[in-house]
């Protein structure tokens, strides 16, 4: 039996009981059902985004805009890559909660650190490629009419703004990853 260094602490709650096992199981089932619906919504949103770009491509083919059709298909593929990555990273292995607290904390930080550090590869990269495809399609369109100088004049501002937004997201993620790395290092110094 533990001896409490501050008896008032023990007196705060001294008559609690564990939840009935049947209720615990019902709660676990409700949680699984929530996850199932979240996954269904995730797939539906992905299907909608991919469908929209695919429809755009079909429309572009119908009016003879083959470059835009290719760009639309390219974006659809990029969206699928991002959704697959989000799904893969969201559905991680169930945690072994019986591990020492420090190891658990470290594994959580480590997971977040790797997700943030690799954002340029699995998130920004595919989205940027998709957008680059669209800008390229517009550039060809403008160039066909007024030459490449006109295309550059029409597109340099949106390309610059988009690049700045992507660079900003990359920097923010890199800073957050660095802060997590510091926490991981701190944990390592506390361990055995």
């Amino acid at each position, binding site marked *: 039996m533990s001896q409490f260094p*501050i008896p008032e602490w023990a007196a705060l709650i001294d008559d609690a009981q564990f*939840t009935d096992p049947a209720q615990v199981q019902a709660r676990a089932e409700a949680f699984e059902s929530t996850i199932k619906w979240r996954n269904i919504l995730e797939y539906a949103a992905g299907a909608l985004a991919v469908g929209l770009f695919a429809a755009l491509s079909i429309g572009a083919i119908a009016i003879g805009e083959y470059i835009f059709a290719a760009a639309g298909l390219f974006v659809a593929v990029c969206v699928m890559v991002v959704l697959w990555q989000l799904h893969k990273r969201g559905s991680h292995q169930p945690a072994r909660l019986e591990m020492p607290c420090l190891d658990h*904390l470290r594994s959580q930080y480590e997971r977040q650190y790797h997700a943030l550090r690799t954002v340029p590869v699995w998130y920004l990269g595919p989205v940027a490629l998709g957008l680059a495809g669209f800008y390229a399609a517009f550039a060809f369109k403008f160039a066909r009419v007024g030459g490449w100088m006109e295309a550059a004049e029409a597109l340099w501002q949106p390309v610059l703004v988009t690049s700045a937004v992507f660079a900003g997201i990359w920097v923010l993620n890199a800073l957050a990853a660095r802060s997590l790395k510091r926490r991981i290092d701190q944990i390592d110094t*506390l361990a055995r």
Partner: protein
Amino acid sequence: MNRQSELYRKAGEAFAPALARLARAMERDSEKADDLEQEMHAALWASFARFEEQCALKTWVYRVAHNVAADHVAKAARGPKRVPLDQIGELPSPTNPEQDAGRSMVMDQVQALILQLPFPDAQVMALWLEGESTRAIAEITGLSTSAVGVRVHRLKQLLAAHFQDPSTKRDQS
């Protein structure tokens, strides 16, 4: 009764109040604290399917409960700014001293202090308040015994001004 149910029953008899206190120490909102407590119970129930006496039942129960609490705190959108034990000069002010007439203001401050501490300092404090020894806290948290010892010493210093030297009630290091 199967083994999982038996372990759950045994753990409930021994640790239910400690886990209820832990939930309230880590979550000030009483409804969310109830939810956190049930989350701990559910995680424990599931974990007992894997329990092969790799460690003492107490160590297992506290690890699962504290890890659930840590995940809960991490998920909270915005928490209070956390300050490590070695940077805290005195107990924080009670956040809601009038919420329960039967409860002392100092206990409110103790809970406020736990909420203010980062992990694993908060875990060390919660376990120390449950009367766990330095060695047991080290086994549960994974900290070295010296790291736990430093934190417990700092806690005693902080609380000494408010209580009649808690270290005299039980020297745990």
